[in-house]
């Protein structure tokens, strides 16, 4: 009976693990992803440090959706910056250039930036740079925080935003390259486990099964 209970507990644990893994591996169309998207939108418009957000943070961590969302936003940031540098090169101001680029692009980051710009245009509200900084802080996106700093310096001190934006885009491309190298090296190590336990071990089993079954038969 005890063994059966252990087996049941093990199965339940494995099932829960599989469900969590499946939810993590599921694409952007999953319910959880939609929920997080909606939540991201809601938080963008009205940040609320309520206690239930702590549970949401745990859920984020479990699902891994927050990490994926961050990665997606960071990936989207690179072409956005490159196109922004194009606009800045044409003599546009940083904010109007960003507005022009975001109005063309489709994607979560462009959508969020459009919303931030719109909100910053309301009289008496926080400026766009401050909102962008808060947004970067909330989503833990250092690259967006760097963009906010560049825009801040450009607005307050009249510094040219073009070199900063261009350097940021180049840095992000380099970071992506480094990440790809790390990912490919890590993957090569990760496949050792399935290769050893999932392929070599069954192969040994196939090799030894006739010998072992004959041996057990002769021992009987």
């Amino acid at each position, binding site marked *: 009976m005890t063994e059966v209970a252990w087996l049941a507990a093990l199965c339940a644990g494995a099932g829960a693990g599989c469900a969590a893994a499946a939810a993590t591996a599921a694409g952007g169309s999953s319910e959880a992803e939609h929920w997080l998207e909606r939540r991201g939108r809601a938080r963008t418009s009205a940040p609320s440090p309520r206690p239930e957000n702590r549970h949401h943070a745990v859920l984020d961590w479990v699902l891994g959706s927050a990490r994926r969302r961050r990665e997606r936003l960071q990936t989207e940031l690179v072409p956005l910056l490159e196109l922004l540098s*194009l606009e800045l090169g044409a003599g546009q101001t940083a904010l109007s250039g960003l507005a022009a680029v975001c109005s063309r692009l489709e994607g979560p980051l462009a959508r969020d930036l459009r919303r931030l710009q719109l909100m910053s245009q309301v009289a008496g509200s926080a400026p766009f740079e401050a909102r962008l900084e808060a947004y970067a802080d909330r989503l833990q996106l250092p690259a967006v925080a760097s963009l906010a700093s560049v825009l801040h310096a450009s607005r307050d001190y009249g510094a040219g935003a073009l070199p900063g934006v261009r350097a940021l885009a180049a840095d992000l491309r380099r970071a992506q390259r480094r990440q790809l190298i790390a990912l490919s090296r890590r993957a090569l190590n990760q496949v050792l486990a*399935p290769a050893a336990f999932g392929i070599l071990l069954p192969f040994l089993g196939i090799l030894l099964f006739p010998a072992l079954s004959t041996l057990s038969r002769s021992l009987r």
Partner: protein
Amino acid sequence: MPELAAAAAGLGVAVAVLTLAERAVPPALNRLLRRLAEREAALAAAAELGWLDLASLTALQATALVVGFLFEFALTGLPVLGLAAGLGLAGLLRARVAARGRARRAALQDAVLEAVRLLHQLLATGAAGVPQALGELAERGPLQLREHFRRIHAAAAAGRQGEAWGQARRRVAEPLFDLLAAAVALQRSGGAELGPLFAQLEESVAAAYDVQREAQALQVQARSAAAVILCLPLLFLGVLSALRSPYLDPYHDAGGQLFLALMLAVMGMSYLWMRRLLRLPEPPRLRFHD
């Protein structure tokens, strides 16, 4: 042989029932099948062989499955091993088609990069504007993209350049080409200078492609090593069967067949898991209004 006939008859009945009662197929299974069909169709299209489409690829794989099954079954007399050999042969065929698609894609990526380089060179001279540079690409650009640039150049004269870029983006389906199209669209509306952007893109994207291809090469090494290990039991059992070795007798009873099926299933699943682990993230497409 009677087992084979029975299996074939069973399969035929199952297919007939599924075909007749399409509504009875659960929606989840229906979605899965549709997704599989879409993936296979994309694979066939990426290979760019005129005669290869979803139907012909499926037929080829089914033929490979049957041939592999019959061959191994005739050699060893073990249906489980026959099924594994059939699946292996079908997988090999699919891998060849996928490899061709990957090679085509790498060539297309190089072509887009070359187009960006050429555009940068032409714009850097200052003698040519963007429309002239696009005309030049249509005449002397990379072969794979000439047709697209020709259409874009022709559409520009009719004032429908945005539409032509959109069509080209859908056909080329490369993030760098998307960025090129977005940059040209922004330049059209704002009159920006494209030269510095193209110079930057040329450098960073070429380096990214290098890394990606190096990673893919390392993956091929790991994948092929796993495939070789996967083939070893088939080979081992095939050779012993051909030599009529009594060592394989335990595999001819139900317990032995079950054990073999289980082990082969574990190996197959592990191989698929390895492939999943080795898969590199695809660079996302850039979506924008033309």
